[in-house]
């Protein structure tokens, strides 16, 4: 990256009210460190207790989801790339998180998120309670992802938004999966 590219990047981040942005290997250590940083920032900004708790919870859920389900890129084995941006929008906060998935999971993820999008807050709460009792930890691709999305939907003040885009040079096999939460 050239300095002028970096400058455009920085200006775009500033314009989008980004508090922080990360792209790279995702690990529990990275998640915990960023989580602590986020909490420190929220305390400094004097955010309400409930906002701070929901934002922290959503941050952990999105990042752990990225960590668990992210697909390694064939040309960089061993790396689980994720990217995340946290920032402010009016008097709220947003989290946008991205990770790479295999295309065969697209339909399943869309189905889950589309069904949550049709629920009102009561239905989300009921579905969360139902999912919590469902001890199906053997299912390796779902592994409670349903409950993770429901946790995000419960805490988000706007419907969850998501999108999938081709990974350049891996069209047809891999996609970037982006998820956006507003607290």
């Amino acid at each position, binding site marked *: 990256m050239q300095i002028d590219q970096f400058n455009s990047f920085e200006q775009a981040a500033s314009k989008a009210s980004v508090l922080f942005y990360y792209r790279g290997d995702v690990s*529990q250590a990275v*998640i*915990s460190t960023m989580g602590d940083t986020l909490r420190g920032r929220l305390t400094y900004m004097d955010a309400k*207790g*409930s906002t701070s*708790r*929901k934002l*922290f*919870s959503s941050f*952990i*859920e999105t990042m*752990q989801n990225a*960590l*668990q389900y992210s697909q390694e890129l064939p040309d960089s084995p061993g790396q689980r790339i994720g990217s995340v941006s946290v920032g402010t929008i009016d008097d709220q906060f947003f989290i946008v998180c991205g990770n790479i998935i295999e295309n065969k999971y697209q339909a399943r993820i869309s189905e889950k998120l589309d069904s949550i999008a049709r629920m009102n807050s009561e239905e989300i709460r009921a579905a969360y*309670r139902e999912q*919590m*009792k*469902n*001890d199906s*930890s053997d299912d390796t691709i779902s*592994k*409670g992802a349903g*409950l*993770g999305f*429901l*946790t995000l939907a*419960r*805490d988000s003040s706007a419907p969850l938004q998501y999108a999938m885009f081709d990974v350049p040079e891996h069209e047809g096999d891999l996609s970037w999966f982006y998820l956006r939460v507003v607290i």
Partner: protein
Amino acid sequence: MNIYHAAAGELPEVDFEFDKHVLSMKGEAFPENANIFWDPLLATLEEYLKATDDADIVANFRLSYFNSASVKKLYAMFGMLNESACKNNRVTLNWYHEEDDDTMQSFGSDLSEDFPVLDCRVIAEAV
């Protein structure tokens, strides 16, 4: 047989004093791999409950946050306590939450609805 783990990063403090029938947990639980943290606790608890009869068991839980992978395990743990209370022990669950934490408060009320045999008390504490 007692279990004690100090709180560490994404793991809560665990103080299961089986000899006193007092099971306490405090802090935050968001391990990356929920099975590694929770399964040994559940296994030991199950063993303890099997070997315990006619006891007054008190569970003190002060959790301020847990991730979605942990919630199922927590729920399973309370299910085991409820089952034991149906059979041969008396179990009190004190579910403490910060007074302005609606999420933890409603989780506590959900527990008391779902596990009616537990003597479940949802207790607000000032921060």
